[in-house]
């Protein structure tokens, strides 16, 4: 009885006595199609903001022994750059959160793309 039962069962994946043989038959577990959404992983900005300005400021600091009043121009440039950057990021974040579609835009955020995919679902 026990022998019979073992014979009826499929090949064990774990057993070294019956290894998997090539070619491995393909078994479809999920339908072969793309998801109807895109993930937001790729949207993280990898821009090195204000590196140039920071380097210039460091050089000036080193020259003047970290006396800030000697590098007013460099400091203002650095702070202005960071302010611009954070404003731009905030605007982008706001826009992205809402997922508002601007006609004629070339680069879309993942939220905007999802909005489009929802409105026009891909046909099978």
């Amino acid at each position, binding site marked *: 009885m026990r022998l019979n039962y073992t014979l009826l069962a499929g090949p064990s994946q774990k057993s070294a006595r019956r290894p998997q043989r090539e070619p491995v038959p393909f078994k479809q577990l999920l339908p072969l199609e793309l998801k109807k959404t895109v993930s937001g992983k790729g949207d993280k900005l990898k821009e090195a903001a204000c590196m140039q300005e920071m380097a210039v400021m460091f050089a000036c*600091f080193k020259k003047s022994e970290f006396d800030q009043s000697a590098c007013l121009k460099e400091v203002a440039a650095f702070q202005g750059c960071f302010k611009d950057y954070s404003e731009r990021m905030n605007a982008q974040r706001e826009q992205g959160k809402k997922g508002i579609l601007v006609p004629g835009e070339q680069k879309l955020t993942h939220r905007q793309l999802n909005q489009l995919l929802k409105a026009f679902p891909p046909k099978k």
Partner: protein
Amino acid sequence: MANNMRILNKCIPWYPSSYLLPRISGVLQSREYSRPTSFPDYFQNPIFRKEDQAKLIESSELTKIAALPMKPPAVYETSSVYHDPLVNKLINHVMEMGKKQLARSLVEKSFENIKRAQIERYHLASTPEAKAKIELDPKKILHKAIENAKPLLQLQPIKRGGITYQVPGPITEKRSLFLAIKWLLEATYEKERTVHFPKQFAWELLDAANNTGKVIKRKQDLHRLCEANRAYAHYRWQ
């Protein structure tokens, strides 16, 4: 205020004072809700400064806001010419256990100490040019001290390959203000037991306004550390 209360107590002598006091304070502040009240989130913050109101009128946004419900301003939010948001912030940082009156008196006492020190210097100065250079307004000195104490950079711990690097980067305006006030207060708390807070705080403010002292050194040390770690700066965006 205490004087007023005494007069009122005299006027109505048949009430027990324990019953009278809360009612009077309620009337004086003209508050129509009990103190710990939260408002729904569609209530807007009050715009109590005349400059801000003028700005709203100029940009014709007042008509939009006028119909919205507003929170009542707190007692410290006033349109008085003596109101200074930075001083208010500082008082809140000095405050411990919600004792605001004590914190305010400490800050005002340090302003008085600054004023005294500067007036002494003013009278000691011989030439009119030297006298003109001495700043007598303690609030201006506070503003200058905080402006000088604000750091430009910060170090952020970022883990790469099992090692935590201290990565330099830009700092937000809000955090840099917070650090400046925190450092000024920490430098003040580092004092002899016999020296009182207002005196030490006045010294620290005068030092920082003069671009010298413990706080400025601390800021420069941070900048030095950032400069030393500048090779890691590119880890920030990976």
